Structure formats: C-alpha cells, structure tokens
C-alpha cells in the first residue's frame, strides 16, 4: 500500500516488476501510456477513432500477457510502441484496409519539431504561401517508410535509437531514412512555395 502512494516516482521497469506480482499495478502503466498510444494508433490507422480503442485494448492485453518477455535492456516505451505499431498494422491488414497515408494533422508539436529540425520556418511558409493542410499533404505524399520515421520522430518525439527499436530497423537505416525524408520534405515544400 505504501508503494502505491509513490507510484508516480516509479519508472516503467519498476512498475513492470510490480505488475507481475499484482495486476493492479498494471493499471498505472495503462494510465501512463493510454493517451500517447491512442494518439499514435489513431494516426497510424488514418484517423479512425472507432478502431483505436479496440486496438488499444488488444495492445494492453498483449503487453500484459508478454510482460515476462520484456527485455529490461530495452525502454518499456519502445517495446509498447512496437507492439502498438504491429497490432495496428495487423488489425488494418485483417480488415483489408491499410491506409496509404497516416493522419498528419498540423499541430503545435509538429510545427515546432519541423521548424527546429528542418531549418524551415513552417509557420511563415504556411501563413504566406501554403495552407496547413498542404504540409499534411506533402508528408502524406512521401513513401510509407518515410512517413513511419517522420511520424515517430516529429509527432511522437522519439529519438533515433527508440525509432530503431520500435520499427526494428538498424539505427543506421533509421538515420538514412530520416535524412532522405527531410530532404524530400524540403524539396516538396520549396516546390509548393514556388508555385503558389
């Protein structure tokens, strides 16, 4: 009981160990990740809110069943994101609907991250030349492999090593994909600015 009072001070690994002994602790892990994962799943599934809850519950149950397989060398967040990613893709495949694009809504986080990383003043560009939805369109027009890394890097704020763990790609490949995605994005944004 004393431990339950200090729950916010516990890291994920400690909560996993506690959840293995008492499932009530698993509830705290769910609370910690439900918002982030729901947002991620919604984006992956192309914005379908109704599917996100079903997938999310399946993700949490799958994670619970496999808690003993969790590798403590890995970040728990990377592991749970990986399961969420795979479950979403499997779900979409099952219902024969793999979205061709993800749901890239131009929110404050995306603008801030794109601005910092790409050295492009996205807000200015949007105000003067292109509409917000064009940025979403540009990102959506990129290859799926680029969208995967962009989504995790700029919308979920994951670093290279986490993206590598989530997508199960070598860190070098992730870095290459991100660089190519950024180059393509810059080219497209320049093209759009030129024509408007």
């Amino acid at each position, binding site marked *: 009981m004393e431990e339950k009072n200090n729950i916010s001070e516990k890291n994920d690994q400690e909560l996993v160990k506690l959840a293995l002994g008492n499932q009530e602790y698993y509830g705290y892990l769910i609370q910690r990740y439900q918002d982030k994962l729901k947002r991620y799943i919604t984006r992956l599934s192309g914005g379908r809110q109704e599917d996100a809850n079903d997938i999310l519950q399946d993700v949490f149950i799958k994670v*619970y069943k496999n808690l*003993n397989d969790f590798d403590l060398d890995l970040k728990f967040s990377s592991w749970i994101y990986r399961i969420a990613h795979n479950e979403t893709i499997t779900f979409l495949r099952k219902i024969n609907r793999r979205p061709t694009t993800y749901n890239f809504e131009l929110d404050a986080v995306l603008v801030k991250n794109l601005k910092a990383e790409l050295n492009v003043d996205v807000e200015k560009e949007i105000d003067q030349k292109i509409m917000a939805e064009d940025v979403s369109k540009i990102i959506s027009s990129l290859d799926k492999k680029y969208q995967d890394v962009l989504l995790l890097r700029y919308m979920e704020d994951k670093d290279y090593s986490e993206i590598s763990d989530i997508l199960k790609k070598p860190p070098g490949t992730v870095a290459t994909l991100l660089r190519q995605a950024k180059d393509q994005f810059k080219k497209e944004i320049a093209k759009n600015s030129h024509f408007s």
Partner: protein
Amino acid sequence: MEEEKNIAEETLKKIKEDNIRPYPKWCFACKNYSFWILFFISAFLSALSTSVLVHVVFEDELYAEADDIFQGTSPYFPYFWLASVVLFILFLYVAFTKTKNSYKFETWFVATALILLILILAALCWQIGLGIVVHQIFSP
C-alpha cells in the same frame, strides 16, 4: 477524459474476468533455448555439408578424374551437398532475422558473420575428418 479512464478500467476488468495471466518466464526461456539449439544444429549441419563438398571437390579421386569438373555439369559434382549448404545458410539467415535483437545489425554484417561461422566450423569438421566419414557413409 471519461472515455480514456474507461479504457484502463475496461482492460483491467477484462484481464480479471478472463483470468488473463502473463505467460510464465520458463515458456519464453524454453522457446529461446530451443531456438538457439536448433540454430547451432543447423549451423553444424551446414558446416558438415560444406566439409563434404570441399572433400569431394578437392580430394575425391572419382571427381578429380572427370574431365569437365569446372563446367559444373559433372555427374560427380556433389549437387546434393551444395544444395544442402545453400539451404542451411538460407535457413540460418531467416532464423537469425527472427531473433529479438537481429534488427540492430545490417544485412551484410549478418550474412558475413554467418558465412564466417560456417567456414570456421567447416574447417574444423574437415580437419578432424568428419567430411570424409560422412562422404563414405553416403557413397554407394
């Protein structure tokens, strides 16, 4: 917010009602050990096939006497052992890519490491004469 709270509650309720438990640790350990045992048995068989192949090509008199040994059409060419080496290497590669941490390595690195492993094991098999023994067992 209410809906989000429900997801946590509903999930915990489902876990309790369906009496869902985490799979025991030994299940994963067994799976893991079985995999690596199978992996090394396959690596050994692949190395053994390689050593038989090397023995036939470089040491077998019947094969050496054939005129068209470098044409690749000799009836004495050990196609079976060559196929066996290729299949085992492919199997080992695919099996390795299914392991937990395989994604951290580039394809060229995995392929090179596997070929080196097979060559080292094959050299050992050849050195202790296993290649000759296996060839004699399978020879008519």
